[in-house]
């Protein structure tokens, strides 16, 4: 089963880069991953050949880390430079034949100022997100074997 993790964010804006930290933690580090500063439309073609894609992103409004299934609604973000994971998945399904599962892992972020390093809260949530991710990946693999 081919799984792709796509972490999004800018590590020089502190917690904005928390998603990249998650992909380096046990549970996620064994999977193919790509680190992006932002989602742009051509990612739709990149994900087309995978069985599952999991987007990881900092979310300043999230209270806790969580993983959700991406619905197939044609949601469009108001600022297109921030293409949403749902947009990417929908574009990929429509234009490039993506037929896999898609998930979004939101990780709470507090500090988006210029600088390096994560806040204490972001580090905690990164570890929690990595654990949740490991469970999801295990489930995906067992379902695929069945």
């Amino acid at each position, binding site marked *: 089963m081919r799984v792709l993790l796509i972490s*999004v*964010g*800018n590590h*020089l*804006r502190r917690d*904005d880069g928390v998603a990249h930290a998650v992909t380096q933690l046990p549970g996620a580090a064994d999977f193919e991953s790509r680190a*992006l*500063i*932002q*989602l*742009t*439309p*051509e990612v*739709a*073609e990149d994900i087309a050949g995978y069985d599952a894609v999991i987007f990881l*992103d*900092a*979310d*300043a*409004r*999230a209270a806790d880390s969580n993983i959700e299934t991406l619905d197939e609604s*044609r949601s*469009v*973000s*108001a*600022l*297109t*430079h*921030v293409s*949403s994971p749902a*947009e990417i998945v*929908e*574009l990929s399904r*429509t*234009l*490039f034949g993506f037929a896999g599962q898609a998930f979004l892992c*939101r990780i709470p*972020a507090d500090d*988006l100022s*210029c*600088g390096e390093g994560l806040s204490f809260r972001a580090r905690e949530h990164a570890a929690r997100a990595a654990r949740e991710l490991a469970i999801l990946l295990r489930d995906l693999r067992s379902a695929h074997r069945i």
Partner: protein
Amino acid sequence: MSRRIVIDRVTRIEGHAKISIQLDDRGRVQSAKFHVTEFRGFEKFCEGRPFQEMPGLMSRVCGICPVSHVLASSKAGDMLLGIEIPAAAEKQRRLVNYAQILQSHALSFFHLSSPDLLLGMDAPASRRNLFGLIDQHRDFLRRGIRLRQFGQQVIELVGGKRIHPGWSGPGGVHLRFSTEQRDEILRWIPEGHESISIALERLKRLLDSFRAEVEHMGNFPSLFLATVNAEGGLEYYEGVIRIVDGSGNVIASDLEPARYFTYLGEASEEYSYMKSPFYQPFGYPQGHYRVGPLARLNVAKFAGTARADRELREFKQRAGGTVCESFHYHLARLIEMQHCVERIEELMTDPELFGENVQARASLNRREGIGSCEAPRGTLFHRYFVDQDGLMKKAELLIATAQNHQAMNLAVEQTARHFLKPLSADASPDEGVLNRIEAAIRCYDPCLSCSTHALGQMPLMVEMIGPGGAVLRRICRES
């Protein structure tokens, strides 16, 4: 009673901004302003860092045009070292710059502006987006994504990664270019030419249905500034600065990019974090100028490649000389994309690109370094001051979008004056009118700051504010 309409935030541009329109007591447009509400602070962040780190740090300024910042920063570093880089390194930098202009323009034209162009300015906001194009324009949309993919692929192949390639630095680049990379890039060329030709023909056919927008969405004389080569041709990496006016007169030529601060000034306005650069001999605000695709095509005498030269001649004939209509930034962008694909193709057969020596080595020889290049949105300048150990004391960045600041204000004002009819106190501006005001800004494809990414939708907010500052009416719509 006078009122103010604020469009906050502007959709489908890169970054955070808002538009406010001041109405007089009869509901007519009095003035309009484009505000930038995002403050980045990267210049401050760089202080104390070794200058060799600057290309890597500066690439984080932007997620759309990181290559431009890497190149301007690398060139400032070259100057600090006091060296000339090997030919192979220069060719690689040129190659990646063409690729970046291609992918950035593809995003602007196909993804941000095509919904306006193909679905119409008055199409419902809920449909006027990428998904609105899927049913009737699927192939067109797919080609746009693939063109962007082409540019990104070249950047990744040569620079190591797509978004923040760190392959270039003071003294040259870190990797040799291989024949395998060449073969991979060559595979994309035919599709690139075909897709851009299709888009060009499509846009030219559409222009007749946008006569009012061409005429009234930012059509005014101004100065135009761009880099040209020694013969006056289109140039993106190294050359001299030329300035022409709205009638095509050459105002200044052969200006040294490294001396930009002697002829370009920066004014500040209290309503925006973005500076307002101007050509010093003309003063502020009379010396405002435009940069980017429209400016480059107005300033250059020729493109230097067959397809782009054909299009450039037609482009210049369209206005009988200098093209002042902001709407034609779209056309200029496509011509530049065509030129970039031609230049990429040319470079694939250039033996110098494959040279073994890609890095010149030296110690710090100067305390001040300046680098410039043509970024997708216009001329970009980086100026660094370092101490005796090469640690950054100060960084100054003059970015392309800032240089279009006054032009964007004028475009917003002209669009609002023409399309926004006098409003009664309780009336809302028409959706299509608001979109045209935004579209005037989108012609310039401003990149205000892509450095922070966060989840969540940002609605378009329109506020009508009375003379006392009270919000009389607030309209919020998703786009």
